[in-house]
């Protein structure tokens, strides 16, 4: 029951938001609404912990002749993703209050719609539902970027839309193909889809279609070119939603669909895919070193990080899979934190260009500290959340192949290089004309960071809560591989 | 044997007229040759013991349609040569294409071994009585609808033919 509330609540909130007029009312309403949503998610979490997760299952007939049903539920992995989504959305909303967006009702309504679609993706236990929500996320994302974005937004969002849409169409094809391979009566129920009997060739094709969809969404090198532009152009909340949550859909999809359905093909093609991912890690990291725009730098760093996660999924062992799950959460938190910090710098100085900034730490020590913490999480310093994920991922990859692990491990060096470079050039040094008048973040703005900082250290210090929730289902997923 | 001669005669006449429709320089000659071709085809209908069709054919084609053509030619005073014939290579390609189509069609039909299930000479289905029964029994609604079609066509033709710009 909680599951369906989690989906419907943001939708209802979103629709009601449209009726509100004043910006203040919209803000209060949206923020409290998203916090309530998070509360529901926490309730689901507690319920999940204390009882079996069948309580969270919701089933209703929809197109019963086609075997499509409204089936939503949560296992450990979805639960973590839902927690991440519902946790980040209030933070994102709160952080966006420092800006005054035109047509606030529509803007926040779209954010809530996005939340609803994302929760839908993570809780769908039916292939067609998964696809529908998957595509549904594109609509608010498109409008947020295309209406409130920066320079050249139309071209860039158009590319983003078409690119990811093409990918998801392949996924639809794969799902339908899979549907016809299910035992009679055909059904989109994920258990039925898992039980589809596939020849190796069919598996390879379905693998390819799924991979294309997810690789574009994640994005894995070389399908990433939409990403830096889109992250750079989007308004800050849009970038956060895209980078913090939306790209997790791709990895989640890999775990949810590819591993159980086409693991043979995955194992067969894993060397190529991991090679791609590892190339992407190094490639994006190297490119990030010389970026001049902070958002773009973070965008490239994100490609490197998610490349590691993708490689981790493909090695198909519990460490890496666990690492991927926990790193999805960590990466979402860290990158949202970084984007918030960048947004606050941009709001105060009007610039995101690294070479134009400097000396912010003297003017805004609080901002410098939180930025440092986000950065440390992002470069995977031990006792921050990033370390747990990267440690497990690299360990898993190491078990698979030592060479890949060594190359992928370069990310810990490169991430230090570009992150410290950015930190040094923007935060440290002397102030200049642009940063001279800079003020520190206000306490209300700091509030947006506090949950993130708490999560960074919580996961870093004691990841057990999160690891234990996901572990049984990670094992279940991996059991499909062993069978 | 006699019917065979008639068949060949009618066929040759129809084909010759058809060729002449194309070969004539003046549209009026084309129309006249077309009329000849229609009569030859009407003969074929008779040969097939489809009297009803033969009659309708003569009325509709040789009567109504030909008159329409003639009127158009004459009213518009189109009875002159084409101002600039198409270049040779276009004609050539057209002939090749048409010839290929013909060869393909003949090639297809040659491949089929179609057995005549019934002798057309003794077939009674082409008689007005039989066809009328079927037409007013099985095909009543299409038949009635065809009158609507005519009405539509008439309205359309009138509208199109009006002087004023629509």
């Amino acid at each position, binding site marked *: 029951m909680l599951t369906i509330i989690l989906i419907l609540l943001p939708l209802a909130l979103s629709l009601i938001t449209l009726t509100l007029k004043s910006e203040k009312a919209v803000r209060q309403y949206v923020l409290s609404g998203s916090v309530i949503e998070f509360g529901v998610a926490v309730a689901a979490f507690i319920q999940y912990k204390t009882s079996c997760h069948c309580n969270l299952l919701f089933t209703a007939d929809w197109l019963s002749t086609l075997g499509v049903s409204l089936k939503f539920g949560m296992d450990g992995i979805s639960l973590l993703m839902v927690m991440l989504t519902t946790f980040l959305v209030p933070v994102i909303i709160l952080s966006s209050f420092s800006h005054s967006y035109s047509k606030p009702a529509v803007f926040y309504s779209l954010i809530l719609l996005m939340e609803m679609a994302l929760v839908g993706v993570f809780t769908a236990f039916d292939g067609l539902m998964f696809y529908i929500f998957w595509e549904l996320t594109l609509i608010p994302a498109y409008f947020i970027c295309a209406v409130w974005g920066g320079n050249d937004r139309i071209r860039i969002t158009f590319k983003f839309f078409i690119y990811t849409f093409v990918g998801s169409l392949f996924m639809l094809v794969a799902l339908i193909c899979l549907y016809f391979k299910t035992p009679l009566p055909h059904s989109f129920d994920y258990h039925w889809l898992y039980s589809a009997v596939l020849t190796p060739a069919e598996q390879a094709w379905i693998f390819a279609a799924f991979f294309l969809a997810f690789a574009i969404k994640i994005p894995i090198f070389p399908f990433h070119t939409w990403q830096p532009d889109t992250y750079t152009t989007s308004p800050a909340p849009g970038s956060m939603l895209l980078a913090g949550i939306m790209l997790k859909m791709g990895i989640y999809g890999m775990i949810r669909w590819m591993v159980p359905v086409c693991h043979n093909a995955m194992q067969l093609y894993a060397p190529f895919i991991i090679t791609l991912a590892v190339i992407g890690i190094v490639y994006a990291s190297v490119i990030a070193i*010389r970026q001049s725009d902070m958002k773009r730098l973070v965008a490239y760093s994100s490609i490197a990080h998610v490349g590691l996660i993708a490689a981790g999924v493909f090695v198909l062992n519990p460490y890496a899979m666990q690492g991927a799950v926990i790193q999805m959460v960590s990466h979402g938190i860290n990158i949202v934190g970084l984007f918030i910090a960048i947004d606050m710098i941009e709001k105060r100085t009007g610039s995101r260009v690294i070479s134009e900034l400097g000396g912010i730490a003297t003017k805004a020590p609080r901002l410098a500290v939180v930025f440092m913490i986000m950065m440390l999480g992002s470069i995977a310093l031990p006792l921050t959340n990033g370390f747990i994920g990267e440690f497990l991922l690299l360990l898993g990859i190491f078990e698979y192949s030592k060479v890949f692990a060594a190359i992928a491990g370069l990310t810990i060096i490169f991430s230090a290089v570009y992150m410290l470079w950015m930190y040094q050039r923007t935060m440290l040094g002397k102030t200049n004309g642009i940063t001279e008048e800079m003020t520190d973040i206000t306490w209300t703005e700091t509030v947006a960071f506090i949950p993130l900082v708490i999560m960074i250290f919580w996961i870093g210090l004691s990841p057990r809560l999160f690891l234990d929730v996901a572990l049984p289902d990670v094992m279940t997923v991996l059991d499909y591989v062993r069978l | 044997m006699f019917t065979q001669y008639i068949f060949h005669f009618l066929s040759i006449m129809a084909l010759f007229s058809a060729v002449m429709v194309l070969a004539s320089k003046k549209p009026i000659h084309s129309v006249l040759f077309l009329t000849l071709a229609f009569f030859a085809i009407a003969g074929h209908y008779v040969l097939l013991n489809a009297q009803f069709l033969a009659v309708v054919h003569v009325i509709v084609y040789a009567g109504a349609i030909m008159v329409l053509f003639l009127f158009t030619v004459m009213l518009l005073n189109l009875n002159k040569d084409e101002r600039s014939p198409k270049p040779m290579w276009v004609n050539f390609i057209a002939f090749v294409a048409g010839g290929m189509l013909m060869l393909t069609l003949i090639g297809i039909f040659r491949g089929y071994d179609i057995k005549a299930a019934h002798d057309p000479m003794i077939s009674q289905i082409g008689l007005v009585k039989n066809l009328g029964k079927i037409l007013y029994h099985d095909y009543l609604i299409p038949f009635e609808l065809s009158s609507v079609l005519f009405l539509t066509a008439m309205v359309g033709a009138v509208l199109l033919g009006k002087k004023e710009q629509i």
Partner: protein
Amino acid sequence: MMDYIVFLIPVFPLLGFLILGLGYRSIPKKLTSIVGPGTILLSFILTLIVFFNFHQFTNSPTHHLFPWISVGPLNIPFAFLIDPLSILMLLVVTGVGFVIHVYSVGYMKEDPGFNRFFAYMNLFVFSMLLLVMGANYPIMFIGWEGVGLCSYLLIGFWFKNQEYNNAAKKAFIMNRIGDLGFLLGMFLIFTTFGSMSFDQVFAQAKSMPVGSPVVVAITLLLFVGAVGKSAQIPLYTWLPDAMAGPTPVSALIHAATMVTAGVYMIARSNILYVLAPATMTVIGITGLATAIFAASIAIFQNDIKKILAYSTISQLGYMFVGLGAGAFTGAMFHLTTHAFFKALLFLGAGSVIHAMGGEQDIRNMGGLRSKLPKTYWTFLVGTIAIAGIPPLSGFFSKDEILLHLYEHSVVMWAIAVMGALMTAFYMFRLLYLAFFKNFRGTDEQLHHLHESPSVMTTPLMILALLAAVGGLINIPELFAGGSWLSSFLAPVFADGAAISLPPVPVSHSTEWMLIAVTLAGCIAMIYFAFHRFVKQDNGLQPDGTQRSGVVRLLSGKYFIDELYDLLISKPLLWLSRFLHEIVELRFIDRLVNGAGNIVVWTGNTLRYIQTGNVGFYMFIMILGIILILFFNILI
């Protein structure tokens, strides 16, 4: 109870960090100067309690705190290990750390970032304690990276200066290169032994054959980590730059504790290393090369802190040589005495810099002996100690390493002795130039000259005392000593010692002879330095002077920084640019956009088929019909 004491040791510095870090704006300096050193003092006291009751604590050496990461068979508890080795390190870290904290109260008094400084310092001690106390490799790695972070923060403490920030960044990144090696080594340990806990790994390692490739790989990877952290060739260039930080930082982090982490880690994993003779050779050669290399650079440096930095690298090299020769106790002994005398030297240098108003070039010093008597005398003690003159601490520790080296290989011994001679030379050069003869600085500086306050000189004296008598903890048999440290650490190295073949012990007469040779050389060097820099006064060349090739090479630090810049930084930046501008924008993005453009282009092109010529349409149509029919025939 015992568990609590153990846990509290790192908790105090962490608390200090949290208090000072969260309230860095509001806490008055007075309070900070109590909280900052106070937390370390508490840890030190607890360490002493542990030390004096160490039998109780080492009965069950591993103290579990809470489970940290657990995934299937991977189980990493947050646990501490208390054994003689970690107690020794704890004593050094908290003891020297406390002294340096006290010193910093005086040294940093005027700095606006006073609170921030102590917050970082406390965080550093916390990380270092984790590193030392960790009962498994990942916990050690937490500390390992944590100290790297603190080093970064403290080197770039004066963050308005981008040069300093560059130095900080360099230190962090070079450390990270090592960390990657450490991390991979850890993974290999896990895949080999199925655990990362010291006790389990070492217990299993005991039964491994000597020289198995996997152990060699593990030890080499771990050694990469040690190379990064302990500034050995080729990853040493960050340490001289790290002198950008405040001097107490150099003393604590870049002399006494953090840089010795590599030595500690190898000593900790001694069983693995004993099993990998190939790695031991690599370590020995690296250490020896570093020792000589850094010492030779130090001879021609003029910055007081840079000299000490190269000296540190060189001394670390000695420790690694010791490790390579299997003298784990010797290395740890040298680590301890080095912590004393190098911290002393750095703090003394800090006192000098403080007095000179920030001047660091020894060419502008001179004659400070009379102006800064306390600093001079303590500095002298440190110099003698590092030069290896008996009976100060440096003599004993260095001698122990040299002796082991001699047992190992005479050639290596000879090279190491050469390094020791160079050490004596450059240290006395420093001493003479800074403290003897006449003052060469500006009048303003002369006017400013003053002895440091007692809050700074007292730590100097404490450390001088330690540097003087620190050698007593391990007086060898030769001098009728009890080798207390050896027996104290013996349990840790017992397993390793049992595996490795005991070298043929040299006779006492040989030992005497070795000592005599070394000592004679050192004294000759000291005299040579005296002759050259005090008598003749020709050691002072301004920056622009033409010098012979060798000297230019040495004073240019072998141009390694420039080489790295040319070989790594520049190509990396170039590659970054290439990948972004050519591969990314011109190739991949064009490919993607090309896919879109092909659609547009196709549409644009096929549009022209729509000629408007009806005849053409009909022709196409008929062609289509023909094709359909034709395929009909075929099928």
